[in-house]
């Protein structure tokens, strides 16, 4: 025995020191025979739903425990590892145990396969176990004296299990079944019971396909039981789970049932005095499921839906703010948009803002302050936009219109957020200018394209088929030029011909001059005013001679005229004729003349002028 314990001590040491003598290794190899890995069940004959314990124990240290296959037995708890170390009189013993709490949900024989563990580099396996499951679970340890009898009344407990569904059940409740996409639905899972519950927990969370799901965090971890009457029976009711669901698309969406396994304590009819005293009860494991619920999700109406709808459904308010209203170019500006209210805040997209084009815009940072409670999802979501103005100037951050859909009024509601005027001062040239801005010149940003605007100047309308081109007027005007030219050409030719005879031309000219000077006389002649006529003739002749011979009016007398005419070598006969005519005219002014008609005098005077013109 001493030798053996010595070996054990060495064994302990050998686990830490690797370079041991082969002799010692031989000893330790022998000692392994004493390492045992065993499986034990607390009972091998159990009822349906009865809990029992299976331990896998190793009298030493082990690692890499491989659990066995339980073949249909429910694992209620485990593996629960435990180690113990005892040292008695310097002899240390070490134990490792993995225990499971199991239960069977149907009758039959179940095998628990071997478990495995690695110790000291050796793999150890346990024996396998057989568990016989027959009948309902017997009463638990609380009534140890009744245990033997409890297994017997099968019929009674079966009857209890049958109407257990009336005694205890799960119910899913929604606050509404007809909703818009994005509108919140509250689903509550409630447990209704008329029997005592020892324990239990929900199975895995139900799949909620087509929903965005937010569980209500219960601040009070202990379920509060309330009394409620349902179908004429009184139940104890507790809410075990609440979720806020947001339908993601339109259509009939199904809320899957929630499953739950509970262990309930049933009262059995008493059979003897002791039963009366202690109560004849048994614990039953019971699985239940809530009923599935269909939610009819309606798509949001298209009418009145703005193009930049961010998907908000509920009831919100919006608040905008900027951290500064005056800054230097290339400094940062924070524009914050806070949306507060009740609804699908988590699913809301950042509203598009359109800062002035010279502002650089970055994607917004989202900060949520959202609470999920039994009233629904509420709180605020804050979008923080980082803007960097690149040029100085006075800019306007236009007010943003935030639009949400209000399912209560079934309408889109647009609420404006404040706009801000931002004053940007000239920034430091060196500070904050990105490296790629190597030149000051920038390309003109094309913001969009559109058709050219309508022409607002005169319409210039004309009737179809009455266009100016090809019209009669067009041809007339077109021909006007050549025709005028032709006329001009013709006129020039006629003119040339007309003026070709010099004598004729001269006489024409003289006639003109005579007519000019004798115009007054002509007038008096037609008027039949005798004395005035002769005066006009005389005046005309004097006037002509004064012009022609360049004699001032003051020096105008007959002698002078005759001298000048002679000097110009005019015929004496003509001078005499002129003299006679003037004589006649002067005489006729005071006395009537006979033997000559007025017309004759006029012609004579005209002839004289023509003759003088001819000669001089």
């Amino acid at each position, binding site marked *: 025995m001493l030798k053996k314990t010595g070996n054990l001590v060495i064994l302990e040491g050998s686990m830490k020191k690797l370079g041991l003598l082969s002799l010692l290794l031989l000893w330790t190899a022998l000692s392994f025979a004493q390492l045992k890995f065993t499986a034990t069940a607390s009972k091998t004959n159990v009822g349906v739903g009865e809990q029992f314990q299976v331990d896998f124990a190793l009298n030493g240290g082990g690692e890499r425990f491989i659990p066995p296959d339980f073949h249909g037995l429910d694992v209620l708890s485990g593996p629960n590892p435990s180690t113990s170390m005892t040292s008695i009189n310097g002899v240390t013993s070490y134990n490792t145990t993995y225990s499971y709490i199991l239960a069977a949900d149907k009758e039959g024989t179940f095998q628990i396969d071997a478990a495995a563990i690695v110790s000291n580099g050796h793999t150890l396996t346990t024996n396998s176990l057989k568990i016989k499951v027959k009948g309902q679970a017997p009463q638990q340890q609380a009534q140890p004296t009744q245990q033997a009898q409890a297994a017997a009344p099968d019929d009674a407990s079966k009857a209890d299990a049958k109407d257990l569904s009336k005694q205890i059940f799960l119910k899913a409740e929604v606050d509404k079944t007809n909703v818009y996409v994005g509108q919140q639905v509250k689903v509550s899972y409630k447990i209704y019971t008329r029997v005592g519950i020892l324990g239990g927990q929900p199975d895995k969370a139900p799949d909620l396909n087509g929903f965005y799901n937010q569980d209500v965090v219960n601040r009070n971890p202990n379920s509060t039981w309330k009394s409620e009457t349902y179908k004429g029976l009184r139940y104890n009711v507790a809410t075990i789970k609440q979720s806020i669901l947001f339908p993601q698309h339109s259509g009939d969406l199904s809320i899957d049932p929630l499953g739950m396994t509970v262990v309930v304590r049933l009262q059995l009819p008493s059979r003897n005095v002791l039963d009366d005293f202690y109560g004849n009860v048994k614990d039953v494991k019971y699985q239940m499921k809530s009923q599935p619920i269909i939610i009819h999700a309606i798509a949001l109406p298209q009418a009145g839906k703005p193009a930049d709808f961010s998907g908000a459904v509920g009831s919100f308010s919006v608040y905008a703010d900027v951290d500064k209203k005056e800054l230097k170019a290339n400094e940062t500006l924070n524009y914050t948009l806070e949306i507060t209210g009740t609804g699908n805040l988590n699913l809301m997209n950042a509203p598009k803002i359109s800062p002035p084009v010279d502002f650089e815009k970055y994607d917004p940072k989202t900060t949520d302050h959202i609470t999920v409670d039994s009233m629904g999802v509420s709180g605020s979501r804050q979008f923080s936009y980082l803007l960097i103005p690149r040029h100085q100037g006075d800019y306007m951050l236009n007010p943003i219109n935030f639009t949400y859909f209000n399912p209560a009024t079934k309408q889109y509601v647009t609420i404006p957020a404040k706009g801000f005027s931002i004053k940007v001062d000239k920034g430091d040239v060196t500070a904050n200018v990105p490296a790629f801005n190597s030149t000051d010149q920038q390309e003109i940003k094309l913001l969009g*394209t*559109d*058709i*050219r*605007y*309508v*022409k*607002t*100047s*005169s*319409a*210039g*309308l*004309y*009737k*179809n088929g*009455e*266009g*100016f*081109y*090809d019209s009669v*007027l*067009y041809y007339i*005007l*077109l021909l*006007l*030029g*050549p025709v*005028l*030219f032709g006329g*001009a*050409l013709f006129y*020039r030719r006629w003119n040339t011909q007309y003026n070709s005879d010099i004598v004729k031309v001269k006489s024409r000219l003289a006639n003109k001059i005579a007519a000019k000077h004798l115009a007054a006389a002509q007038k008096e002649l037609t008027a039949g005013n005798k004395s005035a006529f002769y005066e006009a003739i005389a005046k005309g002749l004097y006037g002509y001679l004064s012009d022609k011979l360049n004699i001032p009016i003051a020096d105008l007398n007959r002698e002078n005229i005759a001298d000048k005419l002679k000097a110009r070598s005019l015929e004496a006969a003509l001078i005499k004729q002129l003299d006679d005519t003037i004589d006649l005219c002067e005489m006729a002014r005071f006395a009537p003349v006979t033997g000559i008609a007025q017309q004759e005098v006029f012609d004579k005077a005209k002839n004289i002028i023509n003759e003088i013109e001819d000669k001089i």
Partner: protein
Amino acid sequence: MKRGLYLLLLLALPLFSLGDDNTALFEKGNAAYAKAQYQQAEKAYQQIVDGGYQSATVYFNLGNAYYKLGDIPSALLYYEKAHKLAPGDEDINFNIRFANSKTSDKVEPEPEFFATQWWHNFILFFSASTLAVLSILLFLAGFGVLILYLFTSSISLKKASFFIGVTMVFVGLVMVFMANRQINYFSNHHQAIIFSSTVTVKSSPDASAKPLFVVHEGTKVTVMQTNDTWIEVELPNGNAGWIASSDVKEI
């Protein structure tokens, strides 16, 4: 330069009476368009056109109104009509290009021989009406200068007026010729806009004929020949075939 020409045109055009109500309608359409009430603008312009009046301006504005209402084929139809009346107008040509980019068919035109292209650009540079007015003014001025040549006695003035006058008359003649060629070009190029959303072009004028290709609304086609209720059309890329004449509207 062009603006000045239009002013000249406008001076000549009051000869052709345009009713006061048309001017009022035009103003009404412009006002509605400015207020983005495109439906009313379209109605006003359309009323002018339905009344049997035309001008590049009113066609252009009507095309704009249709464009804003999203009716691309109608917009293109009226742009093309405007283009026909004022082929050199850059606004009209720009909007044609812009509206064409909104149609679904992308048709690469067959490359034209460069001289043909120059020739077309040359004869389409001014509208026929502009050319008519210009040629008349040049004729009148040219012959006026030539008349001066006939009667002036100064030798230098005579020389100058002769050459100036002859040049003006020659340029006027060229413009008369250009206008004639332009009218001829448009009467030989019957074009149409597809108005049905999808049209299958057939190999012969028969509903059961072999389908050749599919064109969509807004595409401009050249009308080759007409046969009862069918017309033969050709795309700018050279593909040709028959479609029902109800599927298109001629420009």
